[in-house]
């Protein structure tokens, strides 16, 4: 595996304080004696994050990552960085933040600190849940080399996107999304050419189970592969950041060769939301990828643009979620393993979201009317029992519980889920996560303070701040898998990936709906059992973007069929199949569809061949 700087700096301090200095020349600046100075700082670029976390989950909405003080109710250590002011003097301070829980005032308060001096304004409890610039007063900057810090006050998920210092007292930074995007791009120099990150046979975007398996599979077939992941770890929903266990079987396969890479990555089954994150095997996954000479791994890189040529994708552009450095990844073939179908969406691929109507698909399990209902997102959590008691504060800003209704559990499982059409899983990902946090903290506060000591010695050990998303876009291929395909066990000539999971379509638990109508956070399901069936290869490539594969939850299925294909061992095997198919594409200089039309036998032969048993 090749690692290209600076994306290899996973978990280490970033060597560059990425602060952009821009001197604005303003003819209308009537109160300034000279040209005003401006310093713009993205918080995710702070050299030391302290206890703050980089959150990129709303990148597609905000155009940026931000820092999050995720301390589970205990203030986290300061995030710090050193910046260079253009000159000493009096600066107006602006802070871009929000109140994430304005019910009516949230808990996510923090201070901005300059050279160990706290600015008086407390941010994060404004009562407004929109990201905005807040004025922080005027500050005297006495030396150009200044240390900045964000000081969390509560550990309850305060957040800060950027800081701005200006000597211009008439300047107000823009809040309107388009203007802000332009302003941010200008500050960060993003209009300039992205750094060339290389040219590849296969560019895989998304480092969950599907993408990781696709990259390994392709690399082992001799392809030069880029694997781009927007988090510091691989594994996606199976990583230590989300902690969902792998489901779906790999021992009932029509083509047993598929599933072996999944098995290599599989670190055992710690269940959902295990308090010990190591059990999910981040290191194992990284080690397997690192062993592949043909893979260039780009962690912490979020793809937000594509470049098209002659109707095909010619490159994807990704931005480092900490440094904001942009990279261009050129390639012949692309695999969308983002879950959200981001690459396909940006490239204009046909897609669906929500539920189709019964009339449209003919599926007995489809609703009468099409709608925007999707399965939800889980933020799992776990407590552990300690020798001594601990306290947890009352949380008036969270969802409220009583002895009439609360969830008497010491840890979460899959049922802790928000979405269900109440929120859009892409554009409102932040709100979904925050709703989950309000449910978790509100319930935990109830258990700690009102259960007659039952939870006195229990302490929150872990709460996911990265949401485990189940459903978003489904990119459409030459075949759209349906409930009938699954239940009839239809074996198409291109049936490759064997799936075994039930049709498992979650819905709000009725009791949860009764108490929280429209704000449900707890799910139920009905499992519709299926016999093992195969997913056709035609579900794994786009029907209108010729060089785009997909693997994972965004493949070509109906909502109902997705209820079965979505589990991660199955998604991993889709990735493996894509890697094999990509190698056939390269051999014949063919597009994914042509493999189906002209080289299907060869692809089937490839997944049928015997393979040396992989050592676990």
């Amino acid at each position, binding site marked *: 595996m090749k690692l290209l700087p600076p994306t290899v700096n996973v978990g280490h301090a970033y060597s560059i304080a990425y602060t952009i200095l821009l001197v604005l020349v303003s003819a209308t600046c009537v109160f300034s004696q000279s040209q005003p100075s401006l310093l713009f700082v993205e918080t995710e670029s702070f050299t030391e994050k302290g206890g703050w976390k980089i959150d990129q989950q709303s990148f597609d909405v905000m155009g940026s990552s931000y820092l999050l003080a995720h301390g589970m109710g205990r203030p986290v250590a300061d995030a710090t960085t050193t910046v260079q002011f253009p000159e000493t003097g009096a600066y107006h301070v602006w802070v871009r933040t929000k109140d994430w829980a304005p019910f009516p005032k949230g808990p996510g308060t923090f201070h901005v600190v300059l050279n160990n001096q706290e600015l008086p304004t407390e941010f994060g409890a404004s*009562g407004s849940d929109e990201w905005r610039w807040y004025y922080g007063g005027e500050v005297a900057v006495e030396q150009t080399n200044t240390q900045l810090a964000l000081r969390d006050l509560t550990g309850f998920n305060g957040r800060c996107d950027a800081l701005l210092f200006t000597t211009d007292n008439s300047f107000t930074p823009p809040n309107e999304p388009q203007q802000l995007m332009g302003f941010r791009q200008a500050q960060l120099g993003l209009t300039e050419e992205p750094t060339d990150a290389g040219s590849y046979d296969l560019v895989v975007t998304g480092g969950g189970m599907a993408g990781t398996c696709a990259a390994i599979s392709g690399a082992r077939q001799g392809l030069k592969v880029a694997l781009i992941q927007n988090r510091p770890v691989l594994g996606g929903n199976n990583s230590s950041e989300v902690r969902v266990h792998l*489901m779906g079987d790999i021992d009932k396969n029509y083509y047993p060769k598929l599933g072996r890479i999944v098995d290599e990555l599989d670190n055992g089954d710690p269940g959902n939301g295990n308090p010990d994150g190591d059990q999910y095997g981040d290191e194992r996954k990284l080690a397997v990828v690192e062993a592949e000479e043909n893979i260039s791994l780009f962690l912490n890189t979020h793809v937000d643009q594509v470049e098209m040529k002659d109707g095909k994708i010619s490159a994807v552009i990704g931005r480092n979620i900490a440094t904001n450095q942009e990279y261009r990844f050129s390639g012949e073939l692309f695999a969308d393993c983002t879950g959200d179908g981001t690459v396909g969406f940006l490239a204009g691929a046909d897609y669906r979201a929500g539920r189709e109507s019964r009339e449209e698909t003919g599926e007995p399990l489809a609703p009468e009317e099409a709608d925007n209902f999707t399965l939800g997102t889980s933020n799992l959590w776990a407590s552990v029992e300690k020798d001594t008691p601990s306290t947890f504060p009352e949380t008036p800003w969270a969802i*409220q519980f*009583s002895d009439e209704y609360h969830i008497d559990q010491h840890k979460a*499982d899959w049922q802790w889920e928000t979405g269900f059409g109440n929120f859009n899983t892409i554009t409102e990902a932040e709100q979904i996560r925050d709703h989950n946090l309000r449910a978790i903290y509100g319930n935990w506060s109830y258990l700690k303070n009102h259960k007659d000591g039952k939870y006195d010695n229990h302490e929150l050990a872990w709460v996911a701040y990265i949401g485990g998303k189940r459903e978003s876009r489904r990119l459409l291929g030459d075949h759209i898998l349906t409930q009938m395909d699954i239940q009839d066990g239809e074996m198409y000539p291109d049936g490759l990936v064997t799936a075994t999971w039930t049709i498992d379509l979650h819905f709000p638990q009725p009791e949860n709906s009764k108490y929280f109508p429209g704000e449900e956070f707890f799910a139920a399901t009905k499992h519709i059992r299926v016999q093992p069936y195969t997913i056709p290869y035609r579900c794994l490539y786009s029907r209108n973007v010729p060089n785009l594969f997909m693997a994972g939850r965004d493949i070509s299925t109906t909502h109902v069929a997705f209820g079965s294909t979505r589990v991660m061992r199955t998604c991993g095997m889709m990735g493996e199949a894509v890697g094999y198919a990509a190698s056939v594409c390269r051999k014949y200089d063919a597009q994914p569809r042509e493999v189906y039309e002209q080289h299907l036998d060869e692809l089937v032969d490839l997944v049928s061949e015997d393979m040396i048993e992989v050592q676990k």
Partner: protein
Amino acid sequence: MKYVLFFLPLIALLNHPEIPSGEKAFAVHIEDAVGDSVQIDVQLTYNERQQPEYYFCHVETPVCKEGLCHILVVDLYWDLLGNFHKYELPKNRPLTKFDHEEFTEADYEKLDNILADKRSLLGEYALEDLVDESTEMVSQEVDAVTGATMKAVENTVVSGAVYSTHALWHLVNGKIPQRIPTHTDSLWSDNMLRQFLASDHYPYHYHALDLLSTEKFAQHLPAIVRLMNESSVFVSRYAIKKFPEALSQDSVGQATLIQQFSSSDFRTQEIILNKLKIVPLHKSSLAQLMGQLDQLSEQQLEQVLAMLLANSDNLTDATLSPVVSLLDHANPAYAKLALQTLQPLAQQYQQLNSALQNYETTTSNR
């Protein structure tokens, strides 16, 4: 059947728990495990103040597996709305599993939870389905493929006591609780209304609130306010939802709602604001509300300022002053909302003009 007949004479010799006194409320007929129709008499018990307290019945019914039966003897109790309360077993007659092993404490605890779950899968499944792994609709509670059926059954029954669990659940959640609310309603009186409102049992609160007319609501307002303050947050919200419009037009009604506002959680506050925004507000109500502006979320502030404009003929300096103060608020959205509210009022309330001019001067200088 022979097995049952052999054991029936022995039942009279068993020690029963003390049976509470009461009057017969109604009878139901159920089909037992050997196919016989059995009448069960349901009693209504009273407390020392002669208020209805519980419904109760004594049951002796065969529980059978492959022709071998034993008699389940149990006393069952429900509240006045048919919610299961408890069961009692005869002394020396504990529940047992198939191998005659006695229930453990954990088994009893699990049974309590199963019986309390009105939505249990046991309601959807026939007895034979519980041991049938081929069923398609497996579970509402598990997220697993392999062995999903078994897991569903494990969660729904006491292990080793599938038949007893099934029989008990259907007694507890079957015909009897369906009949109870009707019988209770047939006895409904002002005394019962008072009893329900004064109880510490949430289902009674909901039921009482459902049956209140506007007149009765006003009459029992102190008891209802007690619910708002002391009952579950969900009951409190329900009581406010049920607050009659006629009452929220009244100054006392408005004072009651506004008094609740500051001590309520956000969702309850939302319900209160929805009640207040559809009625004309008294001067005192407006002044009280405006005194809390700084504590509101942006969304709430927008609603409250809209109320101010809707009642623009009823404003005083005391009402307007907190809004003027918002012009200097650190949150620019609050200042903007204040400005948008005050500008259309400036002609009617000329004392606002200087504040607005001052605001314009300050912002243009920054």
